[in-house]
């Protein structure tokens, strides 16, 4: 290449200190060359990609922002070329809160803000203290009270009337908090030396992991009532919740098992020879280490559990996906699925992305911790 022709005749290097790198390798130009045009193939690919982006992003931008209708009735939308965001803005309260009594909807809003606040303060390991744990307990209690009412002069609201985002969050948050201990127990059971316990746990875990979640939801919604003696019923939401818990627990169990297997045998022996019994060994020595190891895979399970709550639409629970679909089946708003589903996608994305972000951050913190302290 030309660079070589220039240097064909060897010259002694006089002042190599002032020598600048070839212009094509540094600066914005160097960056472009290195990252976008380093080979002919890459140059072609870059060109094609830019063309593709030009052809897709620009029209999308026009559709989503420039020509969009943000508020206003549906007939306005039908005349416009762009996105009809008013399908969201006009129905936002039903989408977000479902059947929750219209005049009481400040309560789910407050509860969700509370949850958001708690999550925000839990994002950093620095804040993981007893106070935060208490705050979570108090917070969850307060959220429950706010949602259910019946105390402090709040009119009671049946859980069957909860819908929309609070229901999604409820299924996710309680699903995860309850599945976690159960998953840990199952993992311990699977590692147990007692053959019967081990067998039970293995069968449970493999069975649950082998079937799709919706078969469990079907079970919860149509078979479970048959299991109960005549006259005893359990609320539909609770049954779906139980199905989600049982499902997630099996996955958590497998992840935790990975952590348990990573703990060297010497740790058990050291604990045993201090005289700690099985329970204390697990609680004080093994689990704290194992659970720390498995934080990254746990986060991805939490994310998929959060996404999986959307499957409850199939058993007619009014989570945020179902409320959106209900709006879409209203004649006025029929045909604006794209906008509505995009909105939901953004909602879910925000939730999942912040979780995975927090997970990565936690992982980083833990790995530095381990270097200095573990």
């Amino acid at each position, binding site marked *: 290449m030309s660079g070589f022709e220039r240097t064909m005749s060897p010259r002694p290097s006089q002042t190599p200190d002032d020598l600048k790198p070839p212009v094509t390798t540094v600066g914005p130009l160097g960056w472009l060359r290195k990252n976008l045009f380093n080979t002919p193939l890459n140059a072609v690919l870059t060109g094609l990609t830019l063309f593709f982006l030009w052809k897709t992003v620009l029209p999308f931008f026009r559709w989503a922002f420039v020509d969009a209708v943000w508020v206003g009735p549906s007939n306005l939308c039908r005349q416009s070329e762009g996105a009809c965001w008013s399908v969201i803005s006009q129905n936002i309260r039903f989408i977000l809160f479902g059947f929750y009594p219209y005049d009481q909807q400040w309560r789910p809003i407050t509860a969700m803000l509370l949850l958001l606040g708690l999550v925000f303060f839990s994002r950093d390991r620095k804040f993981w203290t007893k106070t935060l744990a208490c705050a979570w307990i108090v917070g969850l209690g307060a959220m429950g009270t706010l949602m259910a009412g019946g105390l402090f002069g709040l009119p009671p609201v049946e859980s069957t009337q909860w819908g929309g985002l609070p229901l999604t969050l409820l299924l996710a948050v309680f699903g995860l908090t309850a599945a976690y201990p159960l998953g840990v127990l199952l993992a311990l059971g699977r590692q147990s030396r007692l053959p019967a316990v081990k067998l039970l746990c293995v069968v449970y875990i493999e069975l649950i992991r*082998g079937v799709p979640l919706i078969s469990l939801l079907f079970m919860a919604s149509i078979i479970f009532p048959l299991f109960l003696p005549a006259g005893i019923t359990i609320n539909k939401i609770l049954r779906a919740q139980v199905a989600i818990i049982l499902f997630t627990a099996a996955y958590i169990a497998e992840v935790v098992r990975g952590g348990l297997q990573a703990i060297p045998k010497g740790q058990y022996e050291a604990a045993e020879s201090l005289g700690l019994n099985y329970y204390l060994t697990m609680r004080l020595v093994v689990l704290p280490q194992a659970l720390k190891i498995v934080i990254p895979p746990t986060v991805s399970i939490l994310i998929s559990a959060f996404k999986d709550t959307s499957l409850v639409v199939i058993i007619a629970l009014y989570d945020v*996906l179902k409320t959106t679909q209900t709006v879409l089946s209203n004649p006025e708003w029929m045909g604006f699925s794209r906008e509505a589903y995009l909105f939901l996608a953004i909602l879910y*994305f925000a939730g999942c992305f912040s979780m995975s972000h927090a997970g990565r951050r936690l992982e980083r913190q833990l790995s530095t911790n381990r270097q200095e302290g573990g």
Partner: protein
Amino acid sequence: MDSSQTVASRPFHPKEPFWLDPRFRALLFQALVLGAVALLAWYLMANTIANLQRQKIATGFAFLEKEAAFEIGESVISYSAADTYARALFVGALNTVKVAAIGIGLTVVLGTFIGIARLSSNWLIARLAAVYIEVMQDVPVLLQLFFWYALFYEMLPGPRQALNPMIGVYVCNRGLIVPSLNPHPAWRWMILAFTAAMVASWLLRAWARRRQDRTGRPFPVFRTSLVLVLGAPLVTWWAFGFPRAVTLPELQGFNFVGGKTLSPEFSALLLGLVLYTAAFVAEIVRAGIQAVGKGQREAAMSLGLRPAQVLRLVILPQALRVIIPPLTSQMLNLTKNSSLAVAIGYPDFVSVANTTINQTGQSIEGVALIMAVYLFFSLSTSAFMNWYNKKARLVER
């Protein structure tokens, strides 16, 4: 030694209280656990039986032999409403297998592609791949299915205004309709030729390896096989005089008649599952490739191997060991997620089973069938995994 006398004088207790024996405790605990589980199972069974009797719901699988009396939108084998439930369920299972198999194939291709793009030295492409992976992983697959399905029927025109990008090919909200080939003996021969070429390529590979071992001269197996596999059917086709009579799809009454149809339900399901799962596969592929250290590539390169050889002889064998186990579980996930077909009207197994439950009221049997079918899939997958892990471990140690 001399310690026996000291011991003889010491009182000891050969019989310990049995309840302090850990072996006894272990047995007791297990018995308690098993008992509790059995009790629970018995209790549920008893309730269920009582409820079933009280509500006069039939039990057992006798319904499988009854006439299903409902239609199924698409089927790999022939089916009509006059067939039995068993056949209807079988049709559903085949539909599940169909979407899963095609989906798995496409997912692996797309996922590998995106995974490699994620590692591309081209910044733009790497970024785009990263964005794709992040977005797809963070949006529920059910929502994606709804989105694609809605897009299909809201954006595409009806059959009468169908897009006609090529002669005989129509795109409309009834799906993608392509011409179908008229029956001709040539087709069977071409399939035969194709199979023969595959076998020949396989033999060629073995031969080429032996020859290279003997003489050192490598043989361009891949290129030759490609020529063979593509050429043999073509030659057969030519030998039969290029029969190319096709049935063009034609708008007759409501719908296109003739030709083959890829329904929107199937397409939306396939698209949703593939796009979603490919994001996970891409991450797996990326991790697998990155798991092979940079040093391995450098060492291979400094032996003078060409880039393709580096990839084939050094990188891939190592990367695959890392990739295959999580890849299999993603394949299984795709299969399980295909059960969401029920939400967008593709008649997969769950969908057919659901209808069956509705018609017969025998929900326990129906859900049990669903679970059994998926368990079968996942147990066979884990059997494969065990086999593979054993093999991979052999290679490593």
